């Protein structure tokens, strides 16, 4: 079982992981963190689903509904933070250094983007993709293939385009890092993922895929498809 398969199974039934899932988690700290995170999410889901039950002997509530408070982002932050805390702790232990390498930060970021693991033929919404590209100061030629996910993500204090491109070898994550310029191409592999960070334009492009992805060929395709706009 590779990490992608693990996440699909653990994300579908985190409370009853089968033996193969547990065996994988035992040897993969990142996936073990993902499982803990998903189990924690389930505890919150259970609390949310447990709506108050009216007494069978009570009359119907007839009062008008009270105004609904708007979504307070800080509350979201608190909830999300409590859920991801386990994974963050796990990641820090795994990294073990005072400052993460760019590759490690890219991999850690993927923990928070579950769309990166979805195999689909459905393209991302054109308007969303357009906004993400515009915000990231790039244009993308259609030759890149099916972009199934696009988001403007916070990464090292900057907003960067995070794309998922569907390939024959599975979904591949592309992060366009205008403000990160490594001296040379960085190649890395970790728990079933392989990635490369290639200097490009004013910064770099990170491409990460599963073990089935032909990373070199995909990276070339991505590099050829990205046009950088001037700052």
């Amino acid at each position, binding site marked *: 079982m590779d990490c992608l398969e693990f996440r*699909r*199974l653990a*994300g*579908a*039934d*985190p409370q*009853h992981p089968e033996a193969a899932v547990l065996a994988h988690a035992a040897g993969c700290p990142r996936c073990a963190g993902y499982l803990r995170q*998903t189990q924690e*999410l*389930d505890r*919150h*889901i*259970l*609390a*949310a*689903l*447990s*709506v*108050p*039950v*009216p007494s*069978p002997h009570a009359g*119907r*509530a007839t*009062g008008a*509904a*009270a*105004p*609904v408070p708007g*979504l*307070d*982002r*800080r*509350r*979201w*932050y*608190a*909830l*999300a*933070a*409590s*859920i991801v805390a386990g994974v963050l702790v796990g990641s820090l232990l795994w990294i073990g250094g005072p400052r993460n390498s760019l590759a490690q930060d890219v991999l850690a970021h993927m923990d*928070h*983007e*579950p*769309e990166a693991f*979805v195999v689909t033929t459905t393209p991302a919404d054109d308007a969303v993709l357009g906004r993400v590209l515009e915000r990231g100061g790039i244009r993308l030629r259609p030759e890149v293939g099916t972009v199934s996910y696009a*988001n*403007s*993500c*916070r990464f090292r204090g900057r*907003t960067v385009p995070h794309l998922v491109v569907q390939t024959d070898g599975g979904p591949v994550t592309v992060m366009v890092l205008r403000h990160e310029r490594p001296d040379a191409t960085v190649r890395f592999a970790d728990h079933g993922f392989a990635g490369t960070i290639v200097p490009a334009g004013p910064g770099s492009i990170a491409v990460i895929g599963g073990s089935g992805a032909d990373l070199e060929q995909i990276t070339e395709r991505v590099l050829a498809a990205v046009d950088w706009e001037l700052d």
Partner: protein
Amino acid sequence: MNAPFTGKDGESAFARLCDELRPDLFRFAFWLARDRQVAEDVVQESLLRAWRSRESLAETGAAKPWLLTIVRREHARLYERKRFETVPVDDLVGSESPELAAAEEQQTLDLRRAILELEDDYREPLVLQVLMGMTTDEIASQLGLTQAAVLTRLFRARQKLRKRLVAGVNEEGS
């Protein structure tokens, strides 16, 4: 065939069982209908139907999935009879008896709002799994889906909730 709900003793046993399962049935109906009053109607009607058919229930252990099926069908029947207007999610949360909700954690209400926004196809299997404790096999049987389809829907349901949480963090950071 064992018929645990026949005779006077069976009636009492069935009444106790319904009392015991009623909170689960109400919650299931609420997440189907996304409306407390509709959920109460669905549960009441379902329990009446169940009462009439109680002698067909062969074993106590099968009661919960059997009752959930009745609730599900009753909700579908009610939905066929009455086309509900589309209601904004804010109103859905508001209609959920705020005086009761006020005692709960605010973060729970936030996640509840996100679950209300899930499409039915994702919300229902999640409710059956997390709240009702059903296995993916049982959910597949209940919903008439393959187990693979159930796994996909459950994975995506959690993904959507997680994405919503992460989006909250990103908005905060922007």
